[in-house]
């Protein structure tokens, strides 16, 4: 897919090493393959609007940034609920398709690779019902 992952928390890079060495590497039998960034003081988190000053931690913010450095999508959750990685991958694949076709194809609700895309234009106005079924949103 060609996506670079960066994880960020307010922990120091030393603590990141400890977490990698003593827990995460045991889950995946190798080192965490992406840089674990240290954001002491929540400077980066503040820039992205997801730093919680009361607890001094970052909330679960996730940002998809395209090759031009533009944010294409984000999702922010409070700490007790984990993310859906498959959904993130689906969104990245959708954004990559749109970029590849330079907006010639767009992805309707529920789109997955191989499913119906829409080609925006005058002919599509009022005719989405002919090329895309509501059920596809729930597949």
């Amino acid at each position, binding site marked *: 897919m060609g996506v670079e992952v960066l994880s960020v928390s307010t922990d120091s890079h030393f603590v990141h090493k400890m977490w990698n060495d003593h827990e995460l590497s045991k889950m995946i039998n190798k080192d965490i393959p992406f840089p674990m960034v240290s954001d002491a003081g929540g400077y980066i988190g503040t820039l992205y609007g997801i730093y919680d000053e009361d607890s001094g931690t970052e909330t679960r913010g996730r940002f998809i940034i395209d090759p031009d450095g*533009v944010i294409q999508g984000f999702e922010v959750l409070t700490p007790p609920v984990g993310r859906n990685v498959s959904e993130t991958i689906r969104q990245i694949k959708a954004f990559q398709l749109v970029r590849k076709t330079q907006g010639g194809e767009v992805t309707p609700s529920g789109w997955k690779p191989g499913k119906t895309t829409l080609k925006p234009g005058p002919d599509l106005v009022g005719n989405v019902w002919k090329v895309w079924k509501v059920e596809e949103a729930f597949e």
Partner: protein
Amino acid sequence: MAEELKPGCTRPEIKREKKEEITENVIEKKEVKSMVKVGKPAPLFEAPAYHEGKFINVKLEDYKGKWVLLCFYPGDFTFV
């Protein structure tokens, strides 16, 4: 006696002394916080990181030309 902390996903709140009383004559500095928006440039940053046995310096700018997934989380050794 020190209070035992309940295990949880969030770090306990840092309690700071309220300084509101003494700031009444000080002109309040209001920082204009611009929330990030989709379709707009991602704020650039540079920070230390740990990556496969090495401590490195990560610059978001260096990732131009690549798709980036930037993931924040509350803290190392959290459960979720």
